[in-house]
């Protein structure tokens, strides 16, 4: 999976916000707000990467168990799918 490259991640007011730089988003006001760990995943998804690879990198970085990592990742991926920015 990989992210739509028309988005750039910015830090505004302590929040991580991805804004679209593509014309297709001109009319739908898409911006995605995320927390620090989601922003870490966002950066990983800049390049083609598998679900399992993302999970192992999250576990490595945040030292959490696999179940928690999966719950958090699934929730974030769902948000990205809804925004239509994830290629799978």
């Amino acid at each position, binding site marked *: 999976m990989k992210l739509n490259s028309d988005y*750039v991640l*910015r830090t505004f007011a302590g929040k991580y916000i991805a*804004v679209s730089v593509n014309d297709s988003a001109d009319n*739908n*006001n898409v911006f995605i707000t995320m927390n620090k760990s989601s922003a870490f995943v966002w950066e990983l998804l800049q390049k083609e990467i598998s679900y399992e690879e993302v999970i192992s990198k999250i576990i490595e970085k945040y030292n959490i168990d696999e179940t928690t990592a999966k719950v958090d990742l699934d929730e974030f991926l769902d948000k990205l799918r809804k925004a239509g920015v994830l290629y799978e």
Partner: protein
Amino acid sequence: MNSPRDIVNNMGYYSATVHGYSMYPLLFDHRDSVYIEKSDEYRKYDVALFERADGQLVLHRIIKIKDSVLYFCGDNDFVIEKVEKQQVIGKMTEFSRKGKEYKTSDFFYKLYSRVWCFSPFTRRVLKRVYNLFVGLRR
């Protein structure tokens, strides 16, 4: 989808990439983005997002305030637009330029705002000088 006004009212903020060149040289089309916050108070030199009668969204700078009327002008424009306070959605408190984030409370941003928008005449001169050295290079 929700309109930017709804988003600002619900979440307190809004963020988007800039479209157009009316705020050049501060903000560049499809490159720079802004962070807009809900606000009750607007001041001269604030950059704010407002909605025209036809629904078009505009991000320009306040150059004068008189009662409930705000006078807007783009940094790259010379046309002054009269806007009622209820048309205003929120003010820019942070922005990113060439991939780097800035706050509107930053010293150099404030200095730029004051100098660039001091008067239409000085702006014409500054614009000439700026274009001579930097031009529309990205």
